């Protein structure tokens, strides 16, 4: 009668879990290989806009990032809400761009310097003024290959 009758010992044998560690290890290695640790802590809020015509960035080691946006909430008391540039781990001004480009070049294999890309991660609510300034500085530094970091979407809306 009872639904919870004890199973007879001669029932189905238990499924062997011996291969469980193997499966888990496989997943583990997958995530270990694909994971990219974020190397900088963002001090500015960056929500990139969306676009449809995206080129993938290859060779991550040849990409340097420039972040632009308003300071994150915790730092707004100190730095205000005007858009700021962040290079590496610190706030910067547009005058720091050229030294930054030089430093990034120093860290790169000389043969690969022409392939270096500067990726602009800019918050979508930023104004173009500061972006234009950065672009002008990059031109001065002869870093002409840039990439406007964007998310992917299927359709642009007005």
């Amino acid at each position: 009668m009872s639904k919870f009758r004890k199973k007879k010992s001669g029932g189905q044998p238990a499924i062997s879990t011996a291969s469980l560690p193997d499966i888990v290890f496989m997943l583990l290695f997958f995530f270990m290989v694909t994971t990219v640790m974020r190397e900088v802590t963002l001090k500015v809020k960056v929500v990139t806009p969306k676009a449809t015509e995206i080129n993938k960035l290859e060779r991550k080691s040849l990409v340097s990032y420039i972040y632009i946006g308003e300071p994150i909430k915790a730092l707004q008391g100190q730095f205000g809400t005007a858009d700021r540039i962040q290079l590496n781990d610190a706030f910067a001004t547009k005058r720091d761009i050229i030294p930054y480009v030089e430093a990034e070049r120093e860290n790169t294999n000389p043969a690969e310097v022409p392939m270096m890309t500067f990726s602009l991660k800019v918050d979508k609510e930023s104004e173009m003024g500061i972006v234009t300034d950065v672009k002008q500085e990059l031109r001065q530094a002869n870093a002409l290959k840039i990439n406007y970091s964007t998310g992917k979407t299927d359709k642009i809306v007005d």
Partner: protein
Amino acid sequence: MARREAPEINAGSMADIAFLLLIFFLVTTTMDVDGGLTRKLPPPIEDEMEDPPEVKQRNVFQVLVNSNNDLLVEGDVMLVSNLREAAKEFIIGDPTFQDEAMPEGKLTEVPILGQMMVSKQIVSLQNDRGTSYEMYIKVQNELVAAYNEVRDEYAQRQFGKTMKQLEKEAEVSKTAELQEDAVKDVYPQRISEAEPKNIGDQ
């Protein structure tokens, strides 16, 4: 001689350890594919550079964006969603190059296709310092999309392949590479951004 068997190490906790690590990497991993619009900046201007060559009005597709994120295309207010079609029409132009409102043609040597008339089109983009970045990217995106679509249509007509297919085949085939170059030469991507005007430097 009977060998004493070494006692087996209990591997039961192996799964736990692996799970722990797995969960750590699961949490820290960010699956974002880093991508965006790749652009090339013009080289810096030198002071002693002579005046740039005059460009005829009919060869220029003028796109202006003001600080209120309004779009003005060739003197008319336009929505971003209509920009792609307008730009495509301009880039393709008039096949006979007789139409006064459309860009002129120029005899150019193109791989595979030989000498042919190529449109002298230029897209000129100018924005205000107050334009939002989101709007700027939308406009850039639509202009790049217009070029890509025009090229795709042309490649499809001439070679029966899309640009993506040609690009893929170019890695192994010389013909595909030449075909890709040919399409790019027929419709070169010329998006020119005006030198920013500095009013009230900060």
